[in-house]
């Protein structure tokens, strides 16, 4: 009796006990009803629906734990402990946060535009979430009970012909959430934040679109001729990067390393993450566009931001980093068993997790941009680089030039950009720039007056 009480009181053992009992119950239920659910799982329509439920659950959990991970990483970087009070190692912190946000008073101030005020967080959250529909999680597979010649299932919620455009469109709709929220708040800080966010997100969408287009053209080149039309599908992009007998360097990132870097930068800016979080900039704008929000509506902005991070990581992984493929693992890429499908989900999940870790380390180690630097980076560095890489890739694919030229172009563009940024001394601030201009004007005036008098 004392032993049982001790186990229940122990934080880790009680958790393990609960998981074990829950697991046994769920497994028993699955085995008992396996015959009943077999046909449901074997039908693509029902399988897609079950998968979408699993994805919603998984993503919400992942988002909650991303926030915990972010706090842990920030604590690690700043030499603190981070959350460690709720549950073992602070692992129940997301649960406590959720309960708090659910129970907190939801204030809608009197001066706001009521409809848009509610619509904004809703929109931010929904558009971040629905992007997951087209991500290829596990490729094609068959359950062990299915016939060997049956049509294999696709471990993906939806497969549309224009998945790449869909993801770009859904991603750029995130700007509506921010702008509507800032506008509806009728608060000057929120309004400035929203304006900044709008200018920033639309500016970084251009380089994002350019490098995605480059990747799409490369995928069209890598795919076999009869499947070349699949290059706008994400599963087509992943299939093009499968390990090959001739070479393992089939990932698009090996052809376009700099384009992959540009996409990472643009995705950071699209998700409004530091060093591009000028829309929030708590030192200048309190909280930016979400100053007037509280409770669940406030939480939705953050859930949306983190979900957007996961979506854009998945997008990057599928386009540039080989999706669920690993070099040399042909079993992983071609096998159609359920086990291989689970392994593929694990691989793509691990790749996404690596990108999220990179996002977080970047956030806590780089200072924030100033707004003119932000716009200059987008329009004067990323867009020209993207344009050159895109034009080069178009010509390389059309004329069948060897692909190493694209690597040379990529690195050349990077070197040129570095040289340009080092030789072209930019003024430190806008104020300094205008002072320099005034000084120069004064000198000119003096010169002209001297010569006029002669």
């Amino acid at each position, binding site marked *: 009796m004392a032993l049982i009480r001790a186990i229940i009181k122990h934080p880790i053992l009680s958790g393990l006990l609960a998981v074990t009992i829950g697991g046994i119950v769920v497994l028993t239920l699955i085995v008992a009803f396996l015959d009943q659910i077999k046909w449901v799982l074997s039908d693509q329509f029902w399988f897609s629906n079950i998968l979408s439920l699993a994805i919603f659950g998984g993503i919400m959990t992942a988002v909650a734990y991303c926030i915990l991970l972010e706090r842990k990483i920030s604590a690690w970087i700043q030499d603190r402990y981070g959350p460690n009070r709720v549950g073992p190692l602070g692992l129940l912190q997301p649960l406590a946060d959720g309960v708090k946000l659910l129970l907190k008073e939801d204030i809608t101030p009197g001066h706001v535009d009521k409809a848009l005020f509610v619509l904004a967080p809703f929109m931010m959250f929904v558009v971040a979430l629905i992007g997951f529909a087209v991500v290829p999680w596990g490729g094609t597979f068959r359950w062990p009970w299915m016939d060997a010649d049956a049509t294999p299932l696709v471990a993906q919620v939806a497969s549309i012909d224009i998945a790449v455009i869909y993801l770009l469109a859904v991603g750029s709709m995130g700007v509506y959430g921010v702008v509507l929220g800032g506008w509806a708040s009728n608060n000057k800080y929120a309004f400035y934040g929203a304006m900044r966010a709008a200018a920033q997100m639309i500016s970084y969408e251009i380089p994002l679109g350019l490098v995605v287009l480059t990747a799409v053209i490369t995928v069209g080149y890598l795919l076999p001729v009869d499947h070349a039309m699949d290059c706008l599908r994400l599963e087509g992009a992943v299939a093009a990067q499968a390990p090959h007998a001739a070479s393992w360097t089939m990932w698009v990132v090996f052809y376009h390393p700099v384009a992959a870097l540009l996409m990472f930068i643009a995705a950071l800016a699209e998700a409004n993450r530091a060093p591009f979080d000028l829309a929030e900039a708590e030192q200048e704008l309190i909280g930016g566009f979400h100053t007037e929000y509280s409770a669940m509506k406030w939480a939705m902005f953050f859930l949306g931001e983190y979900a957007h991070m996961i979506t854009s990581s998945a997008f990057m992984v599928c386009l540039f980093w080989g999706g669920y493929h690993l070099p040399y693992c042909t079993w992983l890429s071609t096998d159609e068993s359920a086990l291989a499908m689970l392994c593929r989900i694990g691989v793509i999940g691990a790749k996404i997790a690596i990108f999220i870790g990179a996002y977080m380390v970047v956030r806590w180690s780089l200072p924030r941009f100033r707004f003119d630097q932000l716009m200059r980076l987008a329009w004067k560095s990323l867009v020209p680089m993207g344009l050159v890489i895109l034009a080069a890739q178009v010509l390389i694919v059309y004329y069948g030039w060897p692909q190493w030229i694209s690597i040379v172009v990529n690195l050349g563009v990077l070197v040129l950009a570095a040289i340009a940024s080092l030789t072209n001394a930019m003024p430190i601030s806008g104020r300094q720039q205008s002072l320099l201009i005034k000084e120069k004007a004064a000198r000119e005036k003096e010169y002209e007056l001297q010569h*006029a008098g002669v």
Partner: protein
Amino acid sequence: MDRPGLALIVGLIIFIIAGICMALVALVIGKFLRTSLPHPEKDAAYECGEPTIGNSWVQFDLRFYVVALVFLIFDIEMALFYPWAVVYKDAGIAGLWDMLFFFAVLVVGFAYLWKFGYLDWVRATHGQRPSNRKISADDAMGRAARGWQ
């Protein structure tokens, strides 16, 4: 649902509807749980405790508008490029160079924006720009005559 392809497209619609429902549930469920203690102070705009002056729905800087216009042009360029990128290998030499000509026109526009400073966030105002500061000879002579030099 015979064809898996159709099932996969229907899956998208169901996914979107499920996502919307999920957001609605998250917004609505709290209504039954949370407290509500209205207070006039809570209704006020939060601007660091300073009394709010006027409305925030005011005119804003024109530069945001310029950025939006430039974005619009480039976004349309990309929207045209995507379908072309799928098929251009079969479209022949005309298909390639037509699009590259279009691309070049946009690059010229981009160079124009760059040259005339529309991509600079911090810009010299009209009067500060050196080219607008040419003092006419008469003016200079007049100043010289008045002994300013």
